[in-house]
């Protein structure tokens, strides 16, 4: 097999007047974890369902594992595993019964006991789905995607709505799949999830890929690796701040001013000196490593999560 597991070219999907996917291209390499990162409504789910062969695109082509959805859908279904964003599995079946049911659909695959071990649900084997927590349900849904021992695993927002601990357990499972050499395509609007799990990330906005690279390269693309955020009592002269030697970029979001800087230990004295010169008092100052969130904000002027 070539190094490309999955390729989408010129994908377009419209729903009436709304263009959900607007000429999107991407390539997923065999063995990598590829992330589609974007805000809600960016077209991630539509894109991933086109790639999964569940939605027919209005135009564009999908090449998957050297085949296409038109030529041999069943053979492809044997080789991929899918977790949909909103599947509620049957409530009155046990974990084992659910996994066994899904296993029966595949010619070859993993033993249900093995899958329960991978998703850490061995002690829930006989529990009804209804009794599982949100995180456990999500891991059962992962189990159903893994039980056919897929060559590509599709995960649509695998941790949305989970608490931090449940999220970390799902991440462990995905990291385990990656470690076994599986190809993973996941969508998320959590930049932390994308940074932590993905080898490469496509940032998606309004149905298009607006940036595609490794997380480190995307952040490096900002030209500076730290972000200073501050608020002041009165208005500041932003033009003079922008002119400071350490400041790579400046953005104002309401009362908060964000500076992208190369070196925090040099930038802070410069900022403080300048504010003093302007006779403006600080009310808040924070600093963090630049994240994909900052990349998204820099590229679109909007945040990934609007809250």
């Amino acid at each position: 097999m070539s190094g490309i597991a999955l390729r989408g070219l010129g994908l377009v999907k419209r729903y009436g007047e709304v263009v959900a996917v607007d000429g999107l291209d991407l390539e997923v390499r065999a063995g990598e974890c590829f992330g589609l990162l974007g805000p809600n409504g960016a077209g991630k789910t539509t894109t991933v369902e086109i790639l999964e062969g569940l939605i027919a695109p209005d135009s564009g082509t999908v090449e998957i594992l050297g085949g296409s959805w038109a030529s041999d859908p069943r053979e492809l279904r044997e080789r991929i595993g899918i977790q949909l964003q909103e599947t509620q599995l049957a409530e009155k079946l046990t974990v084992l019964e659910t996994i066994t049911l899904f296993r029966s659909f595949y010619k070859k695959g993993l033993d249900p006991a093995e899958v329960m071990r991978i998703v850490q649900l061995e002690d829930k084997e006989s529990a009804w789905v209804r009794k599982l927590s949100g995180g456990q349900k999500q891991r059962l849904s992962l189990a159903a995607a893994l039980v056919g021992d897929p060559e590509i695993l599709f995960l649509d927002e695998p941790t949305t709505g989970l608490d931090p601990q449940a999220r970390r357990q799902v991440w462990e499972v995905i990291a385990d799949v990656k470690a076994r050499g599986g190809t993973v395509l996941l969508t998320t609007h959590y930049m932390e999830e994308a940074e932590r799990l993905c080898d490469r990330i496509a940032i998606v906005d309004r149905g298009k890929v607006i940036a595609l690279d490794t997380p480190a390269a995307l952040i490096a693309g900002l030209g500076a690796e730290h972000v200073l955020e501050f608020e002041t009592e009165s208005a500041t002269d932003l033009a003079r701040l922008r002119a400071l030697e350490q400041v790579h970029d400046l953005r104002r979001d309401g009362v908060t001013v964000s500076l992208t800087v190369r070196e925090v230990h040099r930038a802070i004295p410069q900022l403080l000196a300048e504010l003093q010169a302007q006779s403006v008092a600080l009310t808040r100052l924070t600093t963090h490593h630049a994240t994909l969130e900052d990349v998204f904000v820099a590229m679109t002027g909007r945040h990934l999560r609007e809250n």
Partner: protein
Amino acid sequence: MRHPLVEITRVKFLEFIREPEAIFWVLVFPVLLSLALGVAFRTKPPEALAIAVQDGPQAEETRDALARDRALAPRILSVSACREALRAGRVALVVVPGAEVTYWFDPTRDESRVARLAADAALQGSAGRVDAVAATDRLMTEKGSRYIDFLVPGLLGMNLMGTGMWGIGFSIVTARSRGLLKRLIATPMRKRHYLVGQMLGRMAFLIPEVGLLVGFATLVFDVPVRGSLLALATVSILGGMAFTGIGLLVAARPRTIEGVSGLMNFVMLPMWIFSGVFFSPARFPDALQPAIHALPLTALNDALRAVMLDGASLAAVAPELAIVTAWGLAALGFALWLFRWR
């Protein structure tokens, strides 16, 4: 690993038996209904007619003559008590003895007219009248002709319809509304395995469903099963399959339980009324009869009654079975064509 069809059928069956409400409606409710209706319409032994003999000369002889007919229960009352008892309906007739016997009664009451005829016959007979024509009675009280006998096959048919349709419709629409159908077609599962598995899973609880109701009716009400058990099983299975197919058709599109419930009732209501569950469809006008007999439940009920009550063979009910099967196959075909997985 088991075959997917086996797994789907198994899961369908497990989901059913883990639903206490379903167990009640499918297995317990028809038995309770047949019990209630069987008790309400049980055959009562004929009661003797209460009649009064007005006190006076020859009252005792008259009473003894009347008492020879066991259908009459005469007693002697005073004149005023006679009037009171007749007016209150406690007696059907007052006999006033004498050289010329007087019958005193309300001619609008059926039982009074019957009592008058019976009393006169008894008195004439005891006075020496000889019947001109010899006559014997043949009584129609054999089992198989009572209301409960008519009712049980109808309840069985109604239950096969209800379980087939709800049992399939509810679970499919629930799975669709929860995104589970979409998840299933994202696997290599064959669609026909899912649909056939749903039908087979439903058929698995046809055995207790039919067995319980027929067994109960046989033991408690002595309802006969005159045809072979094989014929009864075959008719039940074909009927169950047909309504499962219709259930699949009704569930082919709706996304909500409310939507499918309305559609179910719309489909089933005419059959509850017209198909002879509780009373014979012969009561409807002749013009409606061809349409009524084309309904699958009418055909199924006719076949069940023929097998249980008349001891009909499968060959004898072949026309009804053909109607039932045709409905099932046509509905299944349409269902496969219309079915939406999301």
